[in-house]
């Protein structure tokens, strides 16, 4: 099986490539990146006028399987991922059961082996049942294949326990991903604390609940001399803290979700539960700070925090509805629309944040188009507009914050491990 992608603008920051090249894929791998490759191939993709980049590495995805297959499965999420140009995902461990022991990690692994349509990497939990009481066996979990640990959905409240986890993670050279939230501050809140919570009469979540934890976790990482990755930043204070920590030499990386840099709390105005997520949409200054953080390189990664929920869990009173939105199918287009087309990021920077940086942070061999690498490649029409429609979403759940929105940038082809795993049905070709 050979694929030749011709005449696209190939962007591969890992190899400092940005120009018109051809790419040849042979036997699941990239075998050549050069001008005017004339070899014949089984499939020839004309990428004239298109962007050719590594498949996206989304390091924050809730697959819901095992346990909540009514929301999403490994199969449906990875199918949605391919439509969004995502070829690798990191599966968050807050499943039922949680990925907190070798048995459940093995269970997830077997589901992945049988049903995944894209690469799925495992994030195990930091503590047993994610209760923040007892550490998991990090060494064993790593051996089974976990590339990171996180209690995502919750913070580890106990300082000493997190410090111990960070030290163990350093010894095992595994990444700790931190969900920063002090639930004693955020408890009961459903939207950002501010004018919108005031107008709508909803309990607010102050930014402090996030940034105080960011501050603590940075100090603990420093003390443990460990790497730490801060998930889903939402407020300007967190960005400032991370900027400072990076200057200090703390080994921190940070991510932001597309909804947080593209939408503000104003979006909640009509009690739309598809605008309810945790952390919540913040105010306009926070959105600007997140964008500036991306621009200045303070924020390394864009990740979807894909969080599928059924309609039954969303089409209810705002205060009772689940937190979270799906994002695999829109993250690239939202990023192009909000960051590239506005001049905030140039294409190679976007590719770094979507592909190369998360791969590096996780220590996985992804996010590049280097010769010899597994062929995870996407071909994107950068200027094509589309409207996000509920019916067209591949994900099992439809709780997108972007329904009805016009976005720019369409994935035409997703090549995953050397085969064409997705082709845009409306490519017009």
């Amino acid at each position, binding site marked *: 099986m050979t694929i030749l992608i011709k005449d696209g603008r190939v962007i591969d920051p890992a190899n400092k490539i940005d120009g018109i090249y051809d790419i040849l894929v042979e036997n699941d791998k990239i075998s050549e990146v050069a001008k005017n490759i004339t070899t014949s191939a089984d499939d020839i993709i004309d990428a004239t006028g298109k962007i050719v980049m590594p498949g996206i590495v989304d390091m924050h995805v809730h697959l819901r399987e095992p346990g909540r297959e009514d929301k999403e499965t490994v199969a449906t999420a990875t199918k949605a991922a391919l439509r969004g140009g995502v070829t690798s995902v990191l599966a968050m461990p807050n499943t039922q059961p949680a990925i907190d022991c070798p048995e459940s990690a093995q269970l997830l692994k077997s589901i992945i082996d049988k049903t995944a349509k894209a690469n799925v990497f495992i994030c195990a939990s930091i503590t047993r049942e994610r209760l923040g009481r007892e550490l998991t066996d990090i060494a064993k979990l790593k051996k089974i294949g976990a590339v990171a640990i996180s209690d995502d959905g919750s913070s580890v409240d106990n300082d000493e326990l997190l410090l111990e986890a960070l030290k163990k993670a350093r010894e095992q050279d595994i990444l700790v991903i931190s969900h920063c939230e002090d639930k004693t501050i955020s408890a009961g809140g459903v939207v950002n604390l501010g*004018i919108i919570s005031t107008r*709508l009469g*909803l309990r607010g979540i102050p930014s402090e609940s996030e940034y105080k934890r960011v501050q603590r976790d940075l100090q603990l990482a420093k003390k443990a001399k460990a790497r730490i990755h801060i998930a889903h930043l939402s407020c300007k204070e967190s960005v400032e803290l991370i900027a400072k920590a990076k200057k200090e030499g703390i080994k921190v990386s940070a991510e932001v979700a597309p909804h947080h840099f593209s939408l503000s709390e104003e979006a909640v105005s009509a009690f739309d539960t598809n605008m309810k997520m945790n952390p919540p949409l913040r105010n306009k200054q926070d959105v600007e700070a997140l964008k500036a953080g991306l621009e200045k390189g303070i924020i390394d990664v864009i990740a979807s925090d894909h969080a599928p929920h059924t309609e039954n869990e969303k089409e209810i009173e705002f205060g009772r509805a689940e937190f979270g939105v799906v994002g695999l199918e829109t993250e690239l287009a939202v990023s192009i629309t909000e960051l590239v087309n506005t001049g905030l990021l140039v294409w190679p920077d976007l590719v770094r944040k979507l592909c190369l940086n998360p791969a590096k942070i996780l220590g996985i061999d992804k996010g590049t188009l280097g010769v010899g690498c597994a062929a995870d490649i996407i071909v994107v029409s950068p200027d094509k507009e589309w409207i996000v429609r509920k019916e067209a979403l591949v994900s099992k759940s439809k709780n997108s914050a972007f329904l009805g929105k016009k976005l720019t940038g369409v994935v035409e082809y997703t090549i995953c491990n050397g085969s064409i795993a997705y082709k845009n049905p409306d490519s017009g070709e």
Partner: protein
Amino acid sequence: MPVAWTRKDLLGLEDLSKEEIELLLATAESFKEVSTREIKKVPALRGKTVVNLFYEPSTRTRVSFEIAAKRLSADVINIATETSSVRKGETLIDTGKNIEALKVDIIVVRHNYSGAAAMLGRHLKASVINAGDGWHEHPTQALLDIFTLKEKLGRIAGLSVSIVGDIAHSRVARSNIWGLTKLGANVTVCAPKMLIPPAIEQMGVEVTSDIDEALSNADAVNVLRMQFERDEENAFPKQLEYFKNFGITQERLEKAKKDIIVMHPGPLNRGIEISSEIADGANSVILEQVTNGIAVRMAALFLVAQANENISHDNTD
């Protein structure tokens, strides 16, 4: 009327224009006389069915809506949580759709979650009137407050109105703020700092925690009911302290405008937010508010029913 009412629902005053609020008030004025007749009934909603769907205990609002609907000749059914299937875990939308399937024209909903009325309105073809949703809005209460004020002082524009009490958790406060500011009144909210929600000045109000300042220039004061948790150990000292610092008393009113109007949405907590002598005194319009509530709710029921008839008529054309 220069403006027509086209909304099938009345969900809050934030969404309404000044003209729409004025239309509601004018309609209420025309209905007020009905309640003074020997036969207190007009056939405006004859053949229509109104359901009061109340998820929170309420007597006065429910009774007021019930009387308003009956004076318009509508049939009224009351559903309270105790007697309905909501305890069996039915969703609000399902409950609403089931009521709609009974060919009900208007659902008056009281709910403890902010946004519940709006959600119901979005999913149903029947009209929905918000009778209070969480801390969000209570539009008919604010309309009756404004109606009473206008009746007393002849205008709203240019008036100074202070709202005193637990602003953070009050749907009455929010609806009053929207209604009054849209009609050109100057609104001040007054409460202990922890009961003032953040950024409220962006709703176009002045903010103070000094009750004397709030009263000094006010043409009217709207005193909110203070709810201290009943089982809370120090509820009583808290009540005393609140009365001392924010209670509306004779002594305080003596420093205010002589004719200051005193309003209260009820039920009263005498000796907590207001003294008995003020509640029963010459400045108080508290019982007139209750009377006007009927006219305002008749207007709301009538306008949404009429608009919805036009909408369904347009759809069948």
